């Protein structure tokens, strides 16, 4: 087993966390998130070719003309093409797209160009936000019930830390935030929570078994004991994610990126936010052991 002094370096980690969180808040406040087509809506252009075009060539032609964030689909027959762009609608957008799409010497006919609204309604946005808050509250109650309220506080702050910094990175580097990234953020919450609980579980077990009040030492032991597991699990997860990131193509790229950042953050925060916070908010041995029963034989609840 390794014997790394994790808790000894907690001050440095706090500084790192606080700086990252501050940058995240600043970036989210100033330049917001770079929301994708799903959230903003854009323009939809329908064109007709006389001979069925190769869709990949159509996509390449759009890319070469400087558009990004588009989708190309066949529409009814393989000669009718539907293009969705994130660009705001203007009078000329239809003819611009048509001239960009002249491939193999054939220029398509414009059938219709119109703006399209967001795919995600306000209702969905509000409900999801509400759901997230409710979910966090229920998790806090469960953790408080199974562990202790200080653990609940630590788990909540750790989750908030991960989500905030993840969103901050997406905002800072102007990476497109679409529905798949939203799904990834939800997955990160699940992952980070999982990781935190595993560490907490070991801390609880060790506190109940030990006789000392040296909490930093107990924490170090717990983290070292779970380190092999933490590295294996985040390792396997990251392995899958890197495959998705490098090989998965455009659609999965940002999804995988969000999760890679999230897994790293989640692993870091379960040690340095979730566990270290327990020291800050002064967890006592007595919080987990009923005062009368000094000697608990079994670590199991």
């Amino acid at each position, binding site marked *: 087993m390794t014997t790394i002094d994790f808790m000894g370096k907690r001050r440095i980690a706090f500084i790192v966390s606080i700086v990252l969180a501050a940058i995240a808040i600043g970036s989210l406040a100033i330049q917001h998130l770079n929301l994708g087509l799903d959230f903003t809506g854009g323009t939809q252009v329908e064109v007709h070719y006389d001979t069925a075009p190769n869709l990949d060539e159509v996509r390449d032609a759009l890319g070469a003309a400087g558009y990004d964030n588009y989708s190309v*689909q066949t529409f009814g027959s393989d000669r009718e093409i539907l293009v969705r762009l994130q660009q705001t609608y203007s009078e000329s957008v239809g003819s611009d797209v048509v001239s960009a799409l002249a491939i193999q010497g054939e220029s398509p006919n414009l059938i219709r160009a119109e703006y399209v*609204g967001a795919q995600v309604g306000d209702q969905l946005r509000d409900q999801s936000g509400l759901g997230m808050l409710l979910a966090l509250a229920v998790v806090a109650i469960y953790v408080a019930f199974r562990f202790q309220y200080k653990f609940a506080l630590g788990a909540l702050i750790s989750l908030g830390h991960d989500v905030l910094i993840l969103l901050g990175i997406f905002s800072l580097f102007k990476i497109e935030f679409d529905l798949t990234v939203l799904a990834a953020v939800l997955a990160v919450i699940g992952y980070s929570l999982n990781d935190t609980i595993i560490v907490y*579980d070991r801390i609880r077990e060790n506190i109940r078994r030990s006789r000392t009040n040296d909490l930093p030492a107990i924490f170090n032991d717990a983290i070292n004991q779970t380190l092999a*597991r933490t590295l294996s699990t985040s390792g396997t997860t990251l392995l899958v994610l890197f495959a998705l990131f490098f090989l998965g193509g455009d659609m999965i790229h940002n999804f995988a990126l969000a999760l890679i950042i999230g897994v790293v953050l989640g692993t870091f925060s379960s040690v340095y936010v979730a566990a270290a916070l327990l020291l800050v908010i002064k967890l006592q041995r007595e919080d987990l052991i009923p005062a009368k029963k000094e000697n608990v034989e079994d670590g*199991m609840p």
Partner: protein
Amino acid sequence: MLNRYPLWKYLLILLVLVVGVIYALPNLYPEDSAIQISGDRGTRIEQSALDRAAQALEAADIAIKRTELEENGSGLIRLQDANDQLHARDVIASTLGQDYVVALNLAEATPSWLASIGAAPMKLGLDLRGGVHFLLEVDMDAAVKQRLESNASAMRQTLRDERIRYRNNEVKDHSIRFAFASEEDLNQARSLLQTQYNVFTFTTEDEGRGAVLVMTITDQAIQELQDYAVNQNLTTIRNRVNELGVSEPLVQRQGPSRIIVELPGIQDTAAAKRIVGATANLEFRLEAAPDTPESEIETLPFRNDPDRKAALLKDIIITGDRVSSASRSFDQNGRPQVNINLDGAGGSQMNSATRSNIGRNMAVIFIEHKSRTRTVMEDGKQVEERVPYTERGIISLATIQSALGSQFRITGLDSPTESQELALLLRSGSLAAPIYFAQERTIGPSLGQQNIDRGIMSVIVGLVMLVIFMLVRYKAFGLIANAALTVNLVLLIAAMSLLGATLTLPGIAGIVLTLGMAVDGNVLIFERIREELRAKKTVQQAIHTGYERALTSIIDANVTTLLVAIILFSIGTGPVKGFAVTLSLGIVTSVFTSVMVSRAITNLSVGGKTLKKLWI
């Protein structure tokens, strides 16, 4: 003895595995392009109609695989060639006429023995497989007219309350006209209405026998009304699509007055079409009393028997918009009925209207805005013209026995399907303006084949790397973990197929991610066993304690995540909901496989044997 399972546990695991494999099987069969036909009012369609459609297709030289009548009362015609689909729909629609809903569909090709036990494949999402695209046009003229009608009704009430007598009232173009016997009445009415209705411009016209007050709605108000109508319809249609249980649909606004609805792959498209476009609503009105003046009476036919008519008051007690919840059930005689709960305002309106009219009859009127297309010649060209019309029919006329509150039920519907759909429509809110289908097309996948291939490739590479990692790190036990992982994948696919989940590319990535995280259970156990071995426990003791000790961690960690997933599922909509389903199923299957299945394999292979060393 340590590390032995009783026989029933092995059998239970085997049973779960067999069931999992069976329900995952349908995913191996590709689907057919098809046309789905259903009755206009959700009624069953007869074999004869299906035969007529099939004959029409044969006459049009379109090859059919086979036709079938489905459980839910709709008919399905499978086509040989996907390219014929659009043409085939037009042929069938013109053969069968207005009483049928004809929709494009992708039909699953699950063998009948699998289908008979409820097995069905997962549906592929709009990004991977495409689906059906409906373009709906919001009928703006009707929206304006509806608003004017309801304003006129409120104005009549105001005038009556203030005892100002009017002779006649009509809605014409963009204005409401009231005729008065005298100039005095007109001025009184004008000053009264002007304060309440600021979206109208007021003018007066002189008519031979009296004065006419003309209130014309302003252009700006029309603009706002149209915007409101489209947005309101968008919300209502989203609710309806969600109520239908279509997963991963797309509903968005296009241009000033249109709404796009896209539904992925295999779905009950005919039902979707009926529900999405339905403008059914209810009105509750009193039957006219013998002394009611002619100008306040409207005579309407019964819905099931057009020859029977009843004279009703023009004034509406409430409409279906005041319904807060609705569900369908059956009365003592097994006839379908809809149970209705009104919101607060609706309840008190209903109560005050019925309290003072006990013994009179009240009618429930079913209103539907429909349109039929007909081909007309214009400038020597054939042009399709759409003629909107409104159907109003009384579905029940019953004596008010006692004052009604906010809860009551209505009967008189044609079929259980109709009562179910009416309940759904009342729940999801009515459309602010009638809509009609302007276009219906199949739409190709929004992702390029190249993108899909790369996505699938990356998923496979990720999985293979996961398997190798576990083998290298845990050797023999890695093999056990990988076996558990395979079972996990099968169970997850089976569960998602059973629930009718829709698979999108990010969804697939999510499944793989779930698997990546699912090995966590086994990692926790194996690390714990290693620890116990280092603490010089015997092999069997170490395995036993390892599984035991890791269990609390696994349960705590997964229960918390499951809580998050369940709440996201119950509150979220659309993609959030879909994600929550995958996540919660993944948690359940991975706890089962990493605890039960891997334990069973461990027990079976090393349990109870005297081993010196464990290959872990």
